[in-house]
């Protein structure tokens, strides 16, 4: 049992609601000492008054002023995700419809790929056949064109090499045309810079 009044530190312990060793003795003293009880009550009123101080507000909201000076960085993976999500419709019904449509397209694509894979031998054979036909047609066309250009000289060209000569002529023509066009472009640019 305390025979003296409480010390300032002891009032602090009680104010902070401490419950450790020695606090019971202080509380016991309070029960018997009206002076310390009154002192503690006054300190509690005073602390309560501090705790009830109002929160102060700035004269205007700060968000716009602050955000004008904040660098918001969007990581690439977030930007990519946002871009992908931007394709999704806003309305739930449309989202469901888009989901059903996407599932249908994905299902149909899977079936088509599966079917194509099981029939791949036939597709390859048809592809090769089409490639041969295309090549023969192209060589015929070049040979005919070369014959038209060379006229009587065409008879001097050994048989079978006429399409090759035609292709060489075509290549030569393209090379000459490209060179002329390139030189004209360079000359025009030089004039533009000089002027």
């Amino acid at each position: 049992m305390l025979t003296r009044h409480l010390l300032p530190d002891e009032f602090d312990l009680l104010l902070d609601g401490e419950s450790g060793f020695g606090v019971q003795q202080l509380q016991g003293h309070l029960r018997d000492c009206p002076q310390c009880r009154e002192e503690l009550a006054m300190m509690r009123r005073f602390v309560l008054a501090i705790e009830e101080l109002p929160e102060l507000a700035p004269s205007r909201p700060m968000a716009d002023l602050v955000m004008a000076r904040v660098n918001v960085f969007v990581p690439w993976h977030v930007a990519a995700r946002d871009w992908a999500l931007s394709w999704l419709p806003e309305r739930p019904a449309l989202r469901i419809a888009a989901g059903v449509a996407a599932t249908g397209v994905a299902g149909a694509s899977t079936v088509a790929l599966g079917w194509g894979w099981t029939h791949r031998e036939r597709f390859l054979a048809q592809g090769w056949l089409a490639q041969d036909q295309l090549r023969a047609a192209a060589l015929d066309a070049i040979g005919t064109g070369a014959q038209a250009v060379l006229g009587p000289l065409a008879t001097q060209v050994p048989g079978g090499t006429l399409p090759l000569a035609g292709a060489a002529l075509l290549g030569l023509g393209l090379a000459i045309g490209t060179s002329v066009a390139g030189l004209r472009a360079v000359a025009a640019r030089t004039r533009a810079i000089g002027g």
Partner: protein
Amino acid sequence: MSRLLDLANLPDADLVARALDGREEAYRELIRRYERPVFSLIYRMVRDREQAEDLAQETFIKVLNNIEKYSPEFKFSSWILKIANNLAIDALRRRRLDTISIDGAANAATAAEVEATSIELAGGGESALDELANRELGSAIEQAIAALRPMYRSCILMRHVDGRSYEEIAQLLDLPLGTVKTYIHRARHELREKLERLR
């Protein structure tokens, strides 16, 4: 609108995560959530509305431009209030005004530091009793807090206005726990004396 309401219900850590994803609305929600506590703390430290608004903005700019440095093991509120308090203390150190207070920072080592960390009390030539007669208790407490040394002021505001524990305050102000307890004890004592004088 519902998206904004959703943000208002999110904990700070989630808002920070969204801010790190580059969501501007998350930044804005953090500002909305903390502009009052930050401004209140700074204003009660520097007692100048214009300067407090500038410092509060500076706090947010500093925090939000360095949001990737935030460590989720600490409370976001502790981090932002720590920066706000540091800016306020720096501003008080820079302040060179005629003051009527003879108190300086608790840790002021030189006469110049004491002067720089003291704060001017608004007193229009009225006596303390006149002051009390004209003002309510809250205002008298505000005045008494304003007259405390800056570090006492930080501690008492964090303890009783923000409701933070001694441990949190020690972490926030980078002070030993015992020092925080001492500062709060002395601050209470000084406040009580000042208010009793006004009684």
